[in-house]
């Protein structure tokens, strides 16, 4: 099947799907029931790599007990999970693995980026660390901190629940997936360049020490060998 064929098939399907909830009242009821169910039985998929993972474990252990909020089951398989919790530093070597896990999770799914490293690269503006996982997977909630306290993670999970409240079964856009984008970065190269630019403290330090330029470099050849 050529590419053109596929897009027509998808658009036809979409029409059919949007026609199903004809009745406004039934649609609202659907939303209520479905969102209530989704919200209160989130199954997290812990993708813990570094220090933040220990705080994630603490959130699951006896003192904080995230099971109180319906997250009873930590699913260690992406096939049976709703929320990907990325806790810790993600290196370029790990990036394809993370993307594959995200692709393996069935819809509906959400993603939490836990900690400074997962969200922005944190203090590690180095050659090996991804500057924010949102370049590769879409993120719903960022939990700040280094590491965030277990309460912080719980708050992040509650925010996912809030987000689900606002969703509607009728609006399928957030749940759509393009098979063409599987295994690809989430953002375009220009956007990655923009959000991964050296900023804040590290820029300042390097400019002072004259170690290297801090302007964005777009092609491999631009940097001195």
């Amino acid at each position, binding site marked *: 099947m050529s590419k053109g064929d596929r897009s027509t098939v998808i658009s036809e399907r979409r029409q059919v799907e949007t026609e199903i909830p004809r009745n406004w009242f039934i649609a609202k009821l659907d939303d209520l029931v479905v969102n209530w169910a989704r919200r209160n039985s989130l199954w997290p998929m812990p993708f813990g790599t570094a*220090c933040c993972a220990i705080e994630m474990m*603490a959130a699951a252990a006896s003192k904080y007990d995230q099971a109180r909020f319906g997250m009873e089951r930590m699913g260690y398989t992406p096939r049976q999970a709703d929320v990907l919790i990325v806790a810790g530093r993600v290196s*370029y*070597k790990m990036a*394809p693995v993370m993307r594959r896990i995200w692709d393996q999770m069935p819809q509906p799914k959400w993603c939490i980026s836990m900690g400074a490293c997962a969200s922005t690269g944190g203090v590690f*503006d180095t050659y090996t660390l991804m500057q924010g996982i949102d370049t590769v997977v879409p993120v719903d909630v960022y939990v700040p901190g280094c590491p965030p306290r277990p309460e912080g993670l719980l708050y992040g999970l509650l925010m996912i629940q809030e987000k689900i409240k606002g969703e509607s079964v009728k609006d399928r856009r957030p749940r759509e997936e393009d098979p063409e984008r599987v295994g*690809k970065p989430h953002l375009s190269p220009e956007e990655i360049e923009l959000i991964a630019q050296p900023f804040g403290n590290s820029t300042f330090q390097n400019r002072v020490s004259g170690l290297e330029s801090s302007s964005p470099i777009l*092609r*491999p050849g631009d*940097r001195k060998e």
Partner: protein
Amino acid sequence: MKPGPNGAAERPDLRQLHAKFGDAVRSLEQDAAGEPVVFVAPERNVEILAYLRDSQGYDLLKDVTGLDLGGDRPLQVVYQLWSTRDSNSLRVKAELPPDHLKLGSAFDIWRASNWLEREVYDMFGVVFEGHPDHRRILMPENYEEGYPLRKDFPLRGRFSRAEQTRLAMSQEMEDIYSLDELVVRGRSGAPGEDRGDGIETQNMILNIGPQHPATHGVLRLVCELDGETIVKCTPHIGYLHTGFEKLCEYRTWNQVIPLTDRMDYLAPILYNIGYALGVEELLGIEVTPRCKVIRVICSELNRILSHLIWVGTTAIDIGAFTPFLYTFQERERIYNLHEAYVGARMTTSASRVGGMMADVPPGWLDGVRDFVETFPNTLDETERLLTQNSIWIGRTQGVGTIDGKGAIDVGLCGPNLRASGVAYDVRKDKPYLDYETYDFDVPIGEYGDVYDRYLVRMEEMRQSVRILEQALARVPDGPINVDDPRVILPPKSEVMNSIDGMISHFKLVMEGLKVPAGEVWSSIESSKGELGFYLVADGGPKPVRCRFRGPSFMNISALPYLVEGELIADLIAVNASVDIVLGEIDR
């Protein structure tokens, strides 16, 4: 570095070395701590190392690393040796010209050098001839940007972020995986072989990780299985490589401290203190008596912290959930103590060069006392759950066995080495922080199996409690930081009221701490084994090289020797028993 005729040259082993190899021993120097450094001719490096092990008793290879001083200066490969017989250490260096980075591999002398040399190749591009498994270890195998720890390699990598992301995501994962697996496949080779029963069978390849709950982080194990028996196990690491050692070269000496606790986040203060001790050795300063005792208290608390999570997670891996809840409860209490002292639960950054970030708050020591009194009860309860438990015994006794000699050879360290009957503990063999004045035992095992490793750690926690009791009884009054304006910020009152105070404050804040040129290899006993710091300074405010010799790195490199021939179910138990933390392995 101080050259020439001094105490080091008098040592009989070095005199004999010189007599035997003549000109191949190029020069003899001393580092900042007075430890001898021998420069040898690269061609005869292997020969000299073999001689040192066989005839001079240097049986323990602690570290192999590289040192690039920038410019056209030769690249150094550094071997750090230790003799368990004479309690002596020795550093051997081979200088390689930048256009000829080749050296013989020491794999035949110490199997422990396997991964260490691979890391030097990965980070510096030194080729080790005769190495059995010469591949990159931390960076992906298709990494094109160069050798990260060379001085001409930029901190953020050569390519732009977009290009790096594109390259990472365009890896065909199956390609990379099979590239890795070639090493495994190379052995079984043929598609199937007949083992005499008329049935063609083939060994199976099983991949575990990098995202798997039983690997304690992002470790990947590739196993070749014959039925349920492990024929070959290849650990793959580097999925959490963060570039700590490179980043440290761009930070001032005190700014490195917050990085250290992000390496071993299970026992963060141990790392903080070990690093501060290393820099203090370079500077030649000694901390105050109060600081020493407070550091001992923090160290031992963190040893308990780390062993507790070990017991909890290992028990989960083997199928017992309850100990996890018990031990995490106690961990929370230590976290509370952390929080009361430094304000953070886990990323403590507690030490400073020349002291601690602050004196302990009032009442804190009572909190520790309270913990020390009640903690042994929980320990007893946990032990009651496990030590005599027949399932636990069945899963752990006689599994993953290694004897003392083998353990030294493959580079095991810490509780794992002691479980094999080698009583090597840095606190006893090369005391720091006045550990020689404390009364404690070094527990050793008999069989070197998983059960012994468990018993050794349990006993170590008891000994830590003993040390804590003694330390609490002797906390002296007095300042926590050294009185040295070159190192420690003066108190605020002085900064505001005296010109001297203001100047030294200004200089420290604006320029950073200056450390005289020199190098040092200092080590402490962390919860996982010997934690070494190889620090090189050039007189400036930033390190030239910060090398962290992580004990977990050494322990995990020995995993294949422990599991080959065991059952696949035991792999999980053995892997858990060596106690790894990936942040430190991958750095």
